[in-house]
């Protein structure tokens, strides 16, 4: 009798296993008849309802995205699409693990692309891209780079962010935006205003790595710095460009005085609020993404701000970098376990390569469209300030954060060091950067890189 509960538990386990063992594995991409999107081939796809998860959350964003999706359903009337907004990456990962993946998922960050590609959490699109004859040359090199990992293209770029310089024309007093780091230093010193106690009232440019968008990945392209060697190990300590950037940055921080600069930085308003220091004329020049144009235009207080945009200044000895910058953006793909992968691919293809769709989305969200045809389309709304970012995105030397399985860890490791550096706690820069390399390489080894 004492074994009865154990036997009962065993039978229960067996019955549960039987329940799951009978399930068929969901179809994978490429296993169904292909459709090219128009005419007879489009009709070849049977009716289905797709589930699309995305991170857009505001009314304006969601409406624009729904309109882009409506363009797809007009093309494929037998396919319905239900969307779920405000989705974070962790939810996507969890759904895939739990076998409840949506048909299509979009993410705002490129940090997880490497893991999703390597683990197969997102399906490899290479075969269907070739099957449909899509020329990936329509995407700038940087956008191609941040959507794949080690030859597995498991995502496509939807819309992109490009980073450049914003400058307040009134504070610049007719001055031109800087093109080199020396000019940026000179202008910063000229435009900075202090009170009698030396406290900063207006900053020319805030060089702190802790300030809003001043991350190493955004500033690195100013000196052409690279993150990784070809074998995936850290290049931060060995690439002299990082030292060039750090020494320039530290000199400017010291000119302000670290404590004075920190006091000023901590007193500034929220980056996403109406009290942004650039809106309020507290900072003359900032590094920011193309989306700031829309934020300025939509802010009742800031909409009349007289400002201009330009590429980021570059190292004095690397003038060829001028015009380039950093880019990353929204990625979209077909998760493993999608119920209708072939339909899902058609939707991904439409959203990422259909010129009209990309132009509509870009005009509504004011992000950079990812294909060259969309960027050159006459319907694309582009004033001079927005056009700067289209040029940066399309520049051959524009770079992105290369995909890595430890993307977040590596940025954390470097950022932690940079805070120590700018406050003056690092005496030996070479040794410090070698320490960052070691942390990154040790983690890479643990991750099986």
């Amino acid at each position, binding site marked *: 009798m004492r074994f009865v509960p154990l036997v009962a538990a065993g039978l229960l386990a067996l019955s549960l296993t039987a329940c799951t063992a009978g399930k068929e594995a969901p179809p994978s991409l490429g296993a169904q008849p292909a459709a090219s999107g128009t005419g007879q081939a489009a009709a070849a796809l049977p009716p289905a309802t797709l589930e699309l998860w995305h991170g857009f959350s505001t009314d304006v964003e969601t409406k624009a995205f729904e309109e882009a999706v409506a363009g797809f359903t007009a093309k494929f009337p037998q396919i319905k699409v239900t969307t779920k907004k405000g989705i974070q990456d962790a939810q996507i990962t969890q759904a895939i693990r739990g076998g409840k993946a949506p048909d299509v998922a979009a993410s705002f960050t490129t940090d997880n692309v490497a893991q999703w590609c390597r683990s197969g959490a997102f399906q490899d699109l290479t075969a269907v891209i070739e099957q449909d004859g899509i020329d990936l040359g329509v995407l700038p090199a940087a956008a191609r780079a941040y959507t794949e990992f080690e030859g597995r293209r498991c995502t496509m770029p939807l819309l992109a962010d490009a980073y450049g310089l914003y400058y307040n024309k009134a504070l610049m007093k007719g001055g031109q935006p800087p093109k080199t780091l020396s000019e940026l230093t000179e202008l910063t010193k000229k435009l900075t205003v202090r009170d009698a106690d030396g406290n900063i009232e207006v900053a020319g440019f805030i060089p702190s790595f802790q300030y809003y968008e001043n991350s190493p990945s955004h500033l690195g392209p100013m000196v052409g710095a690279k993150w990784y060697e070809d074998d995936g190990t850290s290049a931060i300590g060995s690439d002299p460009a990082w030292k060039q950037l750090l020494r320039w940055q530290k000199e400017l921080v010291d000119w302000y005085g670290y404590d004075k600069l920190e006091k000023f930085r901590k*007193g500034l308003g929220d980056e996403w609020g109406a009290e942004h220091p650039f809106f309020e004329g507290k900072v003359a020049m900032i590094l920011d993404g193309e989306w700031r144009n829309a934020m300025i235009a939509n802010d009742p207080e800031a909409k009349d701000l007289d400002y201009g945009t330009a590429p980021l200044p570059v190292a004095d000895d690397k003038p060829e970098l001028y015009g380039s910058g950093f880019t990353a953006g929204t990625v979209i793909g077909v998760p493993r376990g999608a119920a209708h992968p072939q339909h899902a691919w058609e939707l991904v293809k439409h959203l990422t390569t259909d010129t009209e769709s990309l132009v509509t989305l870009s005009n509504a969200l004011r992000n950079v469209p990812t294909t060259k045809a969309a960027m050159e389309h006459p319907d694309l709304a582009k004033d001079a300030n927005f056009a700067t970012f289209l040029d940066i995105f399309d520049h051959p030397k524009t770079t*992105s954060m290369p995909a890595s399985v430890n993307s*977040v860890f590596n940025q954390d490791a470097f950022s932690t060091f940079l805070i120590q550096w700018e406050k003056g706690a690092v005496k030996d820069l070479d040794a410090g950067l070698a320490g960052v390399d070691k942390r990154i390489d040790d983690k890479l080894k643990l991750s099986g890189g």
Partner: protein
Amino acid sequence: MMASTHVARRGHALARPSRRRPGEGLRALLWLSPWIAGVTVFFVYPLLSTVYFSFHRYDLFTLEFIGLDNYRYAFSDPRVLQSALNTLWLVVFMVPAQVVFALGVAQLLAKLKSGGGILRTIFYLPSLVPMVAGTVAFVYLLNPATGPVNQLLAWFGIAGPDWFGSAAWAKPTLTLLALWGAGNTIMIFLAALLDVPRHLYEAAAIDGAGAWRQFRSITLPTISPVLMFSAVTGVIYAVQYFTQAMIASRVASGATDSAGTTFTPGYPDGSLLTLPQHLFHTGFRDWSMGLACVHALLLFAVAMLFTLILLRQFGKAEVTS
């Protein structure tokens, strides 16, 4: 003789092996089965899984056995040591501060003749504020440049500290936040204090015992089970401390969440990085769930150790009293 016979009979009766009725064991198991199922599903299985995953490279999708590599890495990772020390700091300083503060306030409230209701409400209200909102409010109030607290201090000629922005001040400031939200503990202590029989104090007063002696010899022994409960739950809470440290760190750093930026938890200088935060970050943002499992086991061991120490100490104290 009668008595000894009776004792012998009782002894015999106790020593005789009991005869179980058929099905009794099964019935007992059935009665216990909800508990057994709960403990198995929510404790034993996760614990065993954690141990199992800790020997693997596990990125949430793929699993590969790597022996002790996760352990070697964890014990050489400076962030693990830093986060463990931060957690230890909270256990050693924040928990006692909270218990002492709550006990002090409860003592005052227990002695009040009038206005006690209003004060009880005032002290309890902060614990009703959602912890995220409370933390964000604290960060704004204590902003070194624009916060009203430093502006008020400046009015008196005092240069206020950098509260959440300074590695030296960040944890003490979190402790202030914990004291502000100690309403639940205050109420538990107040209930315990009001439960201490009045006549014990009256007798002690007649014997000439002062306030301190009465507190040490009557109040403390009487409420010691409640003290133990607060200390043990306080330690477990401190070991699992996550939300407030994470929010304070994030808001004070001004970190953003756009493409190409990441938030490094623990700002400033890793001083607010607690072990649970490091665990979460490692598992869910760095995709190193195997390594995060090592952190989880470490956290479990630390929580167990502190709980056992506390139970032992209170056990000794109870025997002495």
